[in-house]
């Protein structure tokens, strides 16, 4: 492999694979490098891929007998919990049953490996069937820069050269820091740690318990007592014969509250509502990974350099604005946009700064940055203690009163609500949250 590539992609996660697929389909000679034993070997997500981009990448993926995804989502639930109760917003609809699905649940070790297989197929059909590669088990230690321009990568003593480099290395973005697009030290303030267990059931038991039909699935997010008062929340997704259950915890808050993430996860699993949901399974994996919050204050301002683009969570492209935790769909779109820029650059034979900047412009025009820009207030709101502590307590206090039938004269709901507010928050809290919430969503 002494010949120069058009592009080297670092990282075979969702962003890197989306970029690779786009390059392969457009006859670009590239090298995709992954440090794990196989694509997905080191990747962890919640996780749901939202939206329709997967159908662009792998047309009619749903027709495959055993594709890389686990279940499509037609049932969503947002649950507020206090110490012993839960109050949910629950939405299920056959409207979501038609492909292309608007959300599929995945396990990354399986999904990424499957998607990498699709990339290999696309390479085999391209003009560079013998010259483009997906290489695993290789750790990129350095992006080679010459006169401010990215010219390749180094692994150990070996160097590979290319006209362009796409960094898709994930949230622990050492190379992005090395080339100076991210600070050398990123503080804990707007970062979170996710901890998760995979719990296995008899598939029939799982399908009955969660009212699943065929390959339909459910996503459930939890706000409130899930986290022992630490900023963050919980999640539960149904896979084929397992569930993914876990917490996302604010790192700074975890540090200040002196708590262990795996202890909080056990607390969450013993919460009366969660306990009855997960009964009887066998834990088959425990995992953890840092995750971005979607707070723009932690994102690199600039996602390009001469000959270089950064995409996916390496660029902190992930957001939870209350409706869904979106990360893999952002990774996919940014990977596609990065690759499209490289395709154009090759046509023009111009990999310079102004051509690379177009990637960031296109990303800014896309739903990814528009949503991140438009929902910053919602991100801040979710990390406000009133929202993740007082509100769930208040809602459940109200729920308990509202649903209690006591053979006593019954209060009007309005009066019950007033009592709950008095007990758990102030009107001023609510007014502030109301104003912020109305503006942010």
């Amino acid at each position, binding site marked *: 492999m002494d010949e120069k590539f058009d592009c080297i992609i670092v990282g075979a996660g969702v962003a890197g694979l989306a970029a690779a697929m786009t390059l392969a389909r457009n006859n670009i000679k590239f090298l995709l490098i992954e440090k794990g034993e196989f694509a997905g070997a080191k990747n962890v997500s919640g996780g749901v891929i939202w939206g329709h981009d997967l159908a662009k990448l792998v047309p009619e993926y749903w027709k495959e007998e055993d594709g890389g995804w686990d279940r499509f989502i037609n049932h969503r639930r947002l649950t507020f919990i206090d110490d012993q109760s839960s109050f949910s917003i629950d939405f299920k609809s056959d409207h979501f049953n038609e492909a292309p699905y608007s959300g599929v649940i995945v396990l990354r070790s*399986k999904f990424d490996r499957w998607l990498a297989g699709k990339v290999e197929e696309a390479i085999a059909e391209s003009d560079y069937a013998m010259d483009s590669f997906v290489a695993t088990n290789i750790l990129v230690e350095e992006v080679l820069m010459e006169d401010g321009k990215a010219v390749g990568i180094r692994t150990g003593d070996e160097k590979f050269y290319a006209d362009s480099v796409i960094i898709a290395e994930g949230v622990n973005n050492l190379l992005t820091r090395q080339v100076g697009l991210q600070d050398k030290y990123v503080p804990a303030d707007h970062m979170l740690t996710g901890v998760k267990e995979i719990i296995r059931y008899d598939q029939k038991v799982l399908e009955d318990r969660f009212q699943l039909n065929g390959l339909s699935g459910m996503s459930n997010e939890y706000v409130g007592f899930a986290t022992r008062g630490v900023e963050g929340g919980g999640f539960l997704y149904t896979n084929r014969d397992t569930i993914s259950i876990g917490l996302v915890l604010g790192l700074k808050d975890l540090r200040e509250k002196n708590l262990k993430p795996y202890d909080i996860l056990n607390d969450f699993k013993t919460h009366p509502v969660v*306990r009855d949901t997960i009964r009887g399974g066998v834990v088959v994996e*425990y995992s953890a990974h840092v995750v971005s919050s979607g707070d723009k204050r932690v994102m690199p301002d600039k996602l390009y350099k001469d000959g270089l683009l950064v995409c996916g969570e390496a660029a902190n492209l992930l957001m939870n604005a209350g409706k869904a935790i979106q990360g893999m769909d952002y990774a996919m779109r940014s990977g596609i946009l990065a690759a499209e820029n490289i395709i154009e650059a090759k046509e023009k034979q111009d990999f310079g700064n102004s051509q690379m900047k177009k990637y960031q412009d296109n990303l800014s025009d896309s739903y990814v940055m528009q949503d991140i820009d438009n929902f910053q207030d919602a991100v801040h709101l979710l990390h406000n203690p009133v929202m993740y502590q007082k509100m769930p307590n208040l809602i459940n206090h109200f729920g308990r009163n509202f649903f209690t039938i006591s053979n006593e004269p019954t209060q009007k709901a309005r009066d019950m609500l007033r009592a709950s507010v008095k007990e758990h928050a102030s009107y001023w809290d609510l007014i502030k949250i109301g104003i912020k919430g109305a503006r942010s969503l």
Partner: protein
Amino acid sequence: MKLLSLNERLGLISYRNQAKSDIKPHIRVDTEICNTVCPHKCTTYVCPANCYTMDEEGKVHFQVEDCIECGTCMYACDQGAVTWEFPDPEIGRGVTWNFG
């Protein structure tokens, strides 16, 4: 359902080069900093794999063997004690997820 201890949880994880005795650590911790100036020693409780422990005298110790490369310590340590890299595929220890 039965709750798992952290050791039971870590026992479910597959690591690379598990059998090798001579591995190159991918994280270096200057515990001198932890044990002299750090006011919180937070890595001893925020690390999801408990790679950082505190002994009876309150001193911080680090072992890389259980590391799952999550990145938590790299952000949580605000004292400059943690030098974080990814493990070398051949001579490092690192995680391979079965589910992910």
